[in-house]
């Protein structure tokens, strides 16, 4: 009998699998219970939950069994990816992510005691509309935040669609909130990273001069520049966005320091925007002396940057070195700060970025704005370029940081600059 009774352990094995199943369920319940419970079909959420922008403009209303969206058509399109839809097509959408908060779900009582709740976002819906209209039919993203508080004021992504009348097969990228969920070749905006590393690791950087004859040979490869810039100091090199100069700087800074700065400045990791994960970027270390290292230092090679990470970085520069972690939920001030740069380096970077505007982009392009910026024209290999324009206003009464990306949009200043101007003008005035 002992032979048989010992084999009875097989039933215990199955019992263990059942317990494993129970634990799996428990885990999923903790992880996703809020989302399940806030499914629109859940009739136990009585009352109405409203998702609004910072000024109380309704972005979505949930009452038992149905969702309605903003009244204004363009607002619906401009805020589509931030809000999400009832089918859950956008995983990072507020309807999905703050579902528990909206339905009043908690683990102890589920939604049995719930009357529904209102949730306000930091977003300014009218600003989103301006940004959306400025992007027009070009795919891209606009992010604007207040770098003194971390509040995100504008976050729009194109192409978009009307959640009230969704298409079965929308244009590619519609389901992506590109500001937080995409990672794109950064082009020259990445020179802001290389420069910060150079300031900290090359004591004589301000005394250097770089000569640009239109191209430079590195590691047996030719790196072309956008023009022939002649002899420039480091200010001129950034303002001209000179590839020849930064190809050399990247070599001097070296692969280790460059990688350290890409990591330290938050470009290679995923961040959490009120619990919503953002896309991580990429920086591949190339060996010293190779052209790849130079390309990496000027934002090409395998470099990828999420616009959200860029927003964090320029916010830190504007805010004296530390960034307030950007937030989309409006529940009082956020105070989570991360130091990215020393205050001296931040101050120097601010000077560089202001110099870009005064000496190259032209203050007239941004009338009335105390803007510090960097453009980027990122070659993506198919002959087109992503247009980037990022920076901040050095203005205590208008402390705004911004990132504009137009995919396959051409020149950074030409394509993305005017969008930044339009949105910032709307915000300041």
């Amino acid at each position: 009998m002992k032979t048989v009774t010992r084999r009875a352990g097989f039933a215990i094995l199955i019992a263990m699998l059942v317990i494993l199943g129970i634990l799996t369920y428990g885990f999923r319940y903790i992880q996703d219970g809020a989302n399940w419970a806030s499914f629109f079909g859940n009739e136990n959420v009585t009352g109405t939950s409203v998702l609004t922008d910072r000024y109380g403009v309704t972005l979505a209303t949930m009452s038992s069994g149905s969702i309605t969206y903003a009244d204004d058509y363009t607002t619906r399109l401009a805020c589509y990816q931030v809000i999400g839809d009832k089918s859950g097509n956008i995983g990072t959408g507020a309807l999905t992510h703050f579902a528990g908060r909206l339905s009043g779900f908690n683990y102890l009582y589920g939604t049995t005691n719930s009357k529904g709740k209102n949730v306000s976002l930091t977003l300014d819906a009218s600003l989103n509309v301006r940004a959306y209209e400025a992007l027009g039919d070009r795919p891209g993203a606009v992010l604007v935040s207040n770098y003194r508080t971390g509040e995100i004021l504008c976050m729009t992504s194109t192409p978009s669609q009307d959640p009230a009348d969704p298409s079965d097969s929308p244009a590619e990228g519609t389901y992506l909130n590109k500001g937080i969920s995409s990672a794109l070749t950064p082009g020259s905006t990445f020179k802001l990273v290389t420069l910060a590393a150079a300031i900290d690791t090359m004591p004589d950087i301000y005394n250097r001069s770089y000569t640009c004859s239109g191209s430079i040979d590195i590691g047996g490869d030719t790196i072309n520049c956008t023009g022939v810039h002649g002899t420039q100091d480091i200010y001129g090199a950034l303002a001209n966005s000179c590839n020849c100069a930064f190809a050399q700087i990247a070599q001097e800074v070296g692969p280790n320091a460059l990688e350290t700065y890409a990591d330290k400045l938050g470009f290679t990791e995923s961040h959490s925007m009120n619990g919503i994960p953002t896309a991580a970027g990429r920086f591949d270390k190339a060996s010293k002396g190779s052209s790849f290292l130079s390309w990496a230092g000027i934002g090409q090679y395998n470099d990828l940057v999420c616009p959200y990470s860029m927003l964090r970085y320029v916010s830190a520069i504007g805010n004296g070195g530390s960034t307030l972690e950007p937030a989309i939920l409006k529940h009082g001030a956020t105070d989570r700060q991360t130091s990215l740069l020393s205050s001296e380096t931040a101050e120097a970077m601010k000077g560089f970025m202001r110099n870009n505007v005064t000496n190259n982009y032209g203050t007239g392009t941004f009338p009335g704005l105390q803007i510090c910026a960097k453009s980027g024209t990122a070659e993506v290999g198919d002959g087109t370029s992503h247009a980037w324009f990022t920076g901040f206003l050095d203005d205590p009464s208008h402390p705004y940081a911004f990132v504009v990306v137009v995919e396959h949009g051409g020149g950074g200043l030409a394509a993305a600059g005017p969008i930044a101007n339009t949105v910032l003008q709307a915000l300041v005035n």
Partner: protein
Amino acid sequence: MEEMVRIVVDASKYVLPFLSLWILIRCVRSMLREKYEPEIWGYILDGRNKTTYPLTHWENMLGRTRNADVHLTNRSVQRVHGVLIRDDNGKWKIFDTFSRGRIAVNGKQVQPDGSPIKSGDSLAIGNEPLVFAEISSAKHAQLESRRTRAGRNVGPGLTLFGLTVFQSFLLLQHTLSAKDEHINNVILGFVALILIEWFCYFLMRSIRRNGFEVEILAFFLTTLGLSVVATSTPEDIFKEIILIVMGIVLFFMVGWWLRDLERSKKYRLSVAIVALIFLILNLLVSRVTNGAKNWILLGGFSIQPSEIVKVAYIYVGAATLDRLFQKRNLIVFIGFSAICVMALALMGDFGTALIFFATFLVISFMRSGSFATVALAITGAGLAGFLVLSIKPYIAQRFATWGHAWQDIYGAGYQQTRAMSAAASGGMFGKGAGSGWLKDIVAANTDMVFGVICEENGLLIALCALLAIVVLAFFAVRSAQHGRSSYYVIAACATVSMLMVQMSLNVFGSMDILPFTGVTFPFVSKGGTSLLSCWMLLAFVKASDTRKGASFVVKPAQEEEG
């Protein structure tokens, strides 16, 4: 007054989970924590080294392996040498396992079909001389009086009283939420269930049986099932009560039948043939429900033959120790299993086929002890599974939805997403019996009962329901250590495994952790034949419970002596 009732009902939402936990803990203490001493049926005396081996089972294996019940160390003894078996009537027989002709009783070689042996006979195993001694009835009575009586420290009466309080509170919640025209039915239904369980309890006490935990766990689950019926289809509550009564009557009948091991063994072949006829009949005259052809309409009642065949399958699959060492027996059983599983696959009843297959693995492992057999069976089934998936797109679709229910909330994921949503919305304590919305979704009271219970009664009670079956499994395994016959041990372990697999497919299927196969939650899901088969299966668990004075299926030793 109205106000008072409201307060009591609100409070009851928090009382019920703790009450069900209390019931569960009492059952655990009594079934798994109390002393469980072996029965002793005889001795093997070794005159050479003055050793006495007690025979604690009806079936005892003699050999040199460490797992032998009579573990002999003499080099002339085979690893598995012989099997010593006592039958219902107290007659002993010895079998030469592999007929090597190396066992002698009183100097005479043992026959291939076994030789009778009685107290005082000398027994030679290899060249090891032994003496066999039956236990005297006086000695047996003396030993029996020292064994712990079931329920001595944790009285089943009090546990059942706790269950009655649980049912009363649940009923109270229903009276507030039920529609006026159904209130009387619901009250009558619950009162009937309470009367039934107390009737069973006093019936058991009247025949001096005190092990009632298995039944209490089943009644606890049945209560939840009744609650689900009361909330989803209150007009069917009488039908449900009738089915419960029928189930319990069948439980007693199967239990009574299993009391006699010789009789049980004798009819295995007949039962197997009847089971196959049932399945073939089902294949010929079946009605399609949800893509599965597993219903027969018989005189106005729809019955699911596969549910009855479940009981037959275990009845046929279990075997006594003497047969375990004969390869031929296992091969016949494998053939029978293959036909059953194939018939179910042809019907498109994929869930039940899976349950049968899992049970097959348990039985074949317990019979052969070989992981190789199990591995081979799983490989074979995997290949057959691919075949089924390629010819039955309806099943393939269920697999496609598995893990992606939320991506198809209006299609294949409709039921799961509703079940998950409702389940989460109930939190720990639920919304109150009868107050949910999931009950109105198609198949809520069968495939999605877990969701309904989570929503209305809360996650804590739903977990207690899952654990009730798991506790039953641990009890069956514990009882196995003191089982009289491997027939009962295998049957009980196969039963609890079957119940666990079925429950897992139901619960985790509706929660999108496993494929959604539409099988029932034992005792809880509404569904005629399923409820009947669950109660019948329970008799196998009772048959393995050899605690003193515990189970009506197990004859006390004195009864046979006379």
